[in-house]
């Protein structure tokens, strides 16, 4: 029961980085509980994936050869089977779009407490998870009942597991129930005239711009700086800019020389898409906005006052 089962994630033939991060988190928990670390790889090229996932600290790999792409019914069934046949008490899954498509169902099915979006944890007499609330304004510690749990871990919070391990790989067959959800295809969105990932300088606009007609102001700034215009999610949700301008987890990951965030609070999904920028500048009215945590330069002020002045400087 002290073992930890990490569920890896892949898409269209490639393992996703969160898999290696989840291994690190899982190893940490297994160490604290004195158990083994087991890694599940479900669907796709399981043999190839198992080789890549065989990193230092992994004690066993369970390869479930069912299907090519993600299917929550396959994941739920496979994880349930692995919990039945191993000593794993806690499931660690990525807090990803797909992770959140099966982990809550696994917890519900097994009657296990669920904590999502963990950014840290401790295991002493029991599990205590650190997570954020109120849009990243606060952190909380959450005590979790019992000694079996389902935990999803936020991407980028644990270092990816490295090294080469020598864990045995076990092939597992599971009997699948008929699935009522069928993946019919994938589509890349956000193509078009401009690739913001190619830009050296990005002026990126967020909710602080308030109205669609105010976009002109940041367009003018981008022009003055010779920069490309990008945005955070709400601007695209509102239909004010096309999807190909969106920076963040569900948009593009960008790493320009200079990233100027105008009226962007810095939600974790946005930060995931731009934290690799060389220099980050933030202009925001809220001094507690998380964007200032990752900024190199900040102006705490009203963008409608600062941006026109900045345009003048480059006019």
């Amino acid at each position, binding site marked *: 029961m002290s073992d930890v089962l990490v569920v890896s994630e892949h898409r269209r033939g490639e393992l996703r980085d969160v898999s290696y991060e989840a291994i690190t988190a899982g190893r940490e928990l297994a160490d604290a509980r004195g158990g083994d670390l087991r890694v599940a790889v479900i669907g796709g090229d399981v043999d190839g994936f198992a080789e890549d996932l065989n990193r230092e600290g992994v004690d066993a790999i369970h390869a479930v050869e069912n299907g090519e792409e*993600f299917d929550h019914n396959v994941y739920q069934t496979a994880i349930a089977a692995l919990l039945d046949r191993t000593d794993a008490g806690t499931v660690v899954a990525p807090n990803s779009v797909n992770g959140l498509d099966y*982990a809550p169902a696994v917890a519900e099915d097994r009657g296990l407490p669920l904590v999502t979006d963990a950014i840290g944890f401790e295991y002493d007499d029991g599990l205590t998870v650190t997570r954020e609330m109120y849009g990243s304004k606060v952190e909380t510690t959450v005590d979790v009942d019992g000694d079996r749990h389902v935990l999803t871990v936020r991407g980028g919070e644990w270092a990816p597991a490295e090294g080469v391990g020598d864990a045995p790989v076990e092939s597992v067959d599971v009997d699948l129930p008929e699935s009522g959800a069928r993946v019919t295809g994938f589509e890349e969105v956000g193509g078009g005239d401009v690739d913001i990932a190619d830009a050296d300088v990005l002026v990126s606009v967020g909710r602080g711009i308030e109205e669609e007609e105010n976009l002109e102001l940041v367009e003018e700034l981008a022009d003055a700086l010779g920069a490309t215009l990008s945005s955070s999610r709400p601007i695209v949700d509102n239909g004010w800019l096309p999807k190909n301008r969106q920076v963040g987890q569900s948009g593009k990951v960008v790493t320009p020389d200079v990233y100027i965030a105008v009226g962007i609070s810095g939600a974790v999904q946005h930060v995931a898409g731009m934290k690799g920028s060389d220099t980050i500048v933030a202009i925001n009215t809220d001094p507690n906005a998380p964007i200032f*945590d990752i900024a190199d330069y*900040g102006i705490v002020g009203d963008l409608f006052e600062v941006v026109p002045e900045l345009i003048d400087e480059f006019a």
Partner: protein
Amino acid sequence: MKVLVTVKEVAEADDDFAIEGTDIAASDLEYDLNEWDDYAVEAAVQLAEAGIADEVVTVTIGPERAEETIRMALAKGADRAVRVWDDAFEAGFADVAAKVSTFEAVVEAEEPDLVLGGVQAADTGFGATGVALAERIGFEHAAVVNDLEVDADAGVAHVRRELEGGVEELTDVDLPAVLTVQTGLNEPRYASLRGIRQAQRKEIDAKELADLGLTPEDVESALDITSMYEPESESDAEIIEGDAGEAAGRLAEVLRDKGVGA
């Protein structure tokens, strides 16, 4: 067909806030309809307008205060609302299973064909209730849906799931189903004056656990928030001081140093 929409009134912290015990001080919180649920309500109302849904019912776990938010959903076009609250919820932090037990009882009473809810609540951000509910009530599900087309005759919802990195998964989901709705699925309407007036006459059915055949034990939480604090700022940002003109001037120097605008 009947659509049930889970609607939450969420709390947002003011820019300046104090923490009292394990929560933000009530006086520093503003309450509003959860942004994601706004899109779920809109999706349901559009299904009704398209003649696909016969009835749209909202369900909320929340105290009497939440009725203002619920009226908002009614003003946008939901037909009626169920609000569940009980002293048992005052005791602490309701975990996903506690919410699922509550919604399960409402689903049994309402017998919807489709349950819609937001991907997550803006305040607690668990992002798990919809999928866990589907498992409990034996519905199919899809999480993080940003496009929805319901074929009621075929009993299928054609959805797109918004994966990371600009990739969408096209999936057919058999009904009955629970779908969690991502922002951007549609353009949530503003309530019209007429809608607001009509909402005053619509029913909000307030229930306690016992009315649903539940006991406080059914909503006992496995989670306990033991501390809340402001994260230590990891910022090493140089904050540029001065009025707008001075700050912009200094920032322009920095940017020119980096070769911007050259």
